[in-house]
């Protein structure tokens, strides 16, 4: 091959790199065999506590991933393909993404969806940017019930990108209508609402959305997709942009990623939406097929005038979520959601009987709820680890004055026995004078 090229050695091919441009060092360890690498990582994996029984959620949930989903998403035809730039040899990915978009629309009650954003947090950031593009305004209001994890991300972007960001006071109940409405003005692009909110409270935001619309303000709904199998949809409430974390739709927890940011909106805003969008069309023979469409929004065409800089998104995770929704189906997803609700209710009832625990009942909840304890929640959770439970997420981590509060998540995977052992363990810890 070298002689074909007309080079004497490999080094001849790198002549453009001057001696002064060569590495000052390159002390990467010598390569290890596959067996050694797998063994090394297996040892590291053993230093992670995947044996805990999880009652921790906070936006990331321990749902069961059916074997058929894992098997199909492991087909190399899906995971070793690239972005479907050549539609004729990418119909598998394209049709799967069209089906994904359709399922997301149906779940959220919206008209159009894109083919994914990186994750729930970045999807919310992209929704904010989209609302600013649509309205020409630069002020964003966020309800106090939105995830504090998303809140910290949005602060990063608003601080660095010159966007005014107003956060209403936090409470563990439903959205405070008056507190939100007092911030509505002519500079406001959008209000962000989350359902169920970070504390688990379910709400019907229709009234806030109507009031916002009357002032030309858009509404962004951040939602939990499993809950949407039961709950009033953002579409029914009138929301303009819907985003959420799709991890619960058949994706493993993976210590934080990859996850799935989904985004849906009204058809009138489709040209302002970031990310890839797949559309149906026909080929030269009139056969149905699917293509990426409205690419003139995207960076590879529009460069600095694009709606977003997003390129690689999380297509595979979108296809996986689509598989999950399809396999469970209409009744299955509802039943799954109901089972979550039932188990959470059982857990609530057991916790309520424990002295020192107060379950917040001011708002309806789904599979996650807020409790206050008679002790520091972070210390209680630490003591629960020793008993084999990740008992919840301590709200003091994000909110001053809520040191005794935690949120507890109960998914379909928690058995009656686990819930009972959890309640018993919590009672022991609360009785333990050393905690």
């Amino acid at each position, binding site marked *: *091959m070298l002689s074909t*090229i007309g080079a004497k050695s490999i080094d001849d091919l790198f002549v*453009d790199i001057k001696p002064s441009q060569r590495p000052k060092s390159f002390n990467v360890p*010598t390569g*290890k065999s*596959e067996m050694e690498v797998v063994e090394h990582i297996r040892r*590291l994996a053993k230093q*992670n*506590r995947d044996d805990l029984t999880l009652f921790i959620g906070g936006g990331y949930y321990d749902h069961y991933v059916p074997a058929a989903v894992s098997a*199909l998403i492991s087909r190399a035809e*899906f*995971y070793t393909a*690239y*972005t479907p*730039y*050549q539609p*004729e*040899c*990418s*119909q598998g990915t394209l049709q799967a993404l069209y*089906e994904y978009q359709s399922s997301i*629309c*149906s779940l959220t*009650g919206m008209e159009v969806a894109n083919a994914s954003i*990186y994750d*729930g947090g970045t999807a919310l950031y992209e929704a904010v940017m989209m609302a*600013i593009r649509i309205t020409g305004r630069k002020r964003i209001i966020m309800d106090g019930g939105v995830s504090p994890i*998303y809140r910290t991300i949005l602060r990063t972007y608003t601080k660095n*990108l*010159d966007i005014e960001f107003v956060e209403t006071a936090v409470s563990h109940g439903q959205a405070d209508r008056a507190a939100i409405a007092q911030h509505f003005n002519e500079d406001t692009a959008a209000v962000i609402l989350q359902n169920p909110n970070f504390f688990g409270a*379910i709400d019907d935001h229709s009234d806030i959305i109507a009031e916002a*619309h009357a002032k030309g303000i858009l509404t962004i709904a951040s939602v939990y997709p499993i809950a949407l199998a*039961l709950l009033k949809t953002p579409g029914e409430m009138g929301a303009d942009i819907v985003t959420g974390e799709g991890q619960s739709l058949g994706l493993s927890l*993976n*210590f*934080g990623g*990859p996850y799935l940011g989904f985004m849906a909106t009204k*058809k009138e805003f489709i040209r302002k939406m970031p990310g890839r969008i797949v559309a*149906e*069309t*026909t*080929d030269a*023979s009139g*056969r149905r097929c699917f*293509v990426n469409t409205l690419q003139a929004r995207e*960076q*590879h065409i529009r460069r600095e005038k694009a709606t977003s*800089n*997003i*390129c*690689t*998104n999380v297509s595979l995770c979108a296809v996986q979520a689509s598989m999950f929704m*399809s396999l*469970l*189906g*209409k*009744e299955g997803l509802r039943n799954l959601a109901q089972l979550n*609700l039932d188990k959470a209710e059982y857990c609530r009832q057991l916790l309520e009987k424990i002295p020192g625990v107060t379950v917040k009942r001011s708002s*309806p909840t789904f599979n996650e709820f807020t409790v206050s304890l008679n002790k520091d929640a972070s210390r209680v959770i630490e003591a629960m680890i020793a008993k084999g439970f990740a008992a919840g997420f301590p709200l003091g981590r994000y909110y001053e004055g809520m040191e005794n509060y935690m949120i507890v998540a109960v998914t*379909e995977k928690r058995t009656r026995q686990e819930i009972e052992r959890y309640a018993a363990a919590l009672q022991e810890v609360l009785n333990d004078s050393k905690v």
Partner: protein
Amino acid sequence: MTVYMKLIFEKSVDGRRSFEIPESDVGVKGQISAKYLRKDPAALPEITELEFVRHFTQLSRRNYCIDTHFYPLGSCTMKYNPKFCEKVAALSGMAELHPLLPQLRKGELLTQGALAVLFEMENILCEITGMDHYTMQPLAGAHGELTGVMMIAAYHKQKGNKKRYILVADSAHGTNPATAAIAGYEIITIPSTDKGVMDLEALKAQITPEVAGLMITNPSTVGIFDTDIDQIAELVHSVDGLMYYDGANLNAILGRCRPGDIGFDVMHLNVHKTFSTPHGGGGPGAGPVGVNKKLAKYLPISRVVKRDDGLFALDYDYPDSIGYVAALYGNFALLLRAYAYILHLGKEGLIEASNHAVLNANYLMAKLKSHYQVAYDRICMHEVVFSASRQAARGVHAIDVAKYLIDHDVHPPTVYFPMTVKEAIMIEPTENESKQTLDDFIAKMIAADELSKKDPESFHNFPQTMPVSRPDEVKAARELNTNYFQKLFPTAKHNIQKMSSPNVLIGDPRRDSSQREPNGR
């Protein structure tokens, strides 16, 4: 309209069930008041598990992928994705780890293995690229770019620098100017010379105190290493501008050159390119960002540190940090695959990877340049750019050659990118392909050229062997059917009052593109 493969919704039959949700074992029923409930269930399909399996298996067979086809998509680095990387990512100790565990009190003890991976990756990537620190948080390359440019902005803000412009090469990926615009900068495009490198005179003319930085890939998207990078860095640094390295093409220079040694202040990596994590049909990726000492204090939080007692922990105490760019710690399962890949290849393997990637690209150039106009007739790096200009004169365009290749069991190279080359065909063979595969591809490319002389008309019918032929993209954009259920929605406008929308941040592409569109990365 002819339907050859039904949508999964079209296979649905009322009442069919597949995955069984177990009966509740808790004996209580959770109730939510009707006012909070949706009217109708989501219209998801009702099928059996076997139908589900067949549906997605059939869909998968309608894709070309690395495991089935040569996939020389320029600028995308479609190298083989080793199976052991999938195996380690699936270990339950990694895959089933809840991301909020380390945020609990003493929670770092619960995730020492995962934190070790992130910490070690930072060290290894620093050594590979010559940077001083890394964040693993960005979730893809473009997200890394935004992280990097926000750090550039934070640097200038803290120093009180008045900056307005980011300089971008004309051959750059679209993400570079798109990112800089979102971060609030105006873009100045610097042209390339006829040698395929940045035009230094043109650059000098744009060097003013208002330049915040310059974004560049090296080797560039035309596959040429810009030897003048020292001078470029010196010019940009002379006005306290910062140098951003787009790591998209790092696969060409592993062990041969490190961005940190040649004047770059900040860079991102695409682990789905250089470090072989699967592309997934358009992601997920991961875009770690490296910085030198100038920018270290602006890195996103949280950061993984090794404490004096030897334990790994999350640290948030960086007051100048730009903050969180993502919720958690990055796309961990991808970073883990990349970590496994790097450990396996090691120092020698990484150098070999670049050697072979560059050798393969130059071999293709040598064999094909008498048939296709080569954009820059000189040694290239990991990819080679041709122009189909000779074939276009016969009525056969780059896109037609691409469609011909589909019929001959090859995923086409990138076409119409970089935009600086007319009728561009950008080929990146990667290091994994054998001489036999390359020779087979060369023969197909030559046959396409021959056919373009004999029967140029025939190209317009390619591909013919796929489930579908060329889609009507204009119709797709005009009819805009992006949701199977959209017919259920009334066409009435929503009750939002019409708003004036001067676009404050970015332009408003209110037009559909029916022209041929370039394939970016």
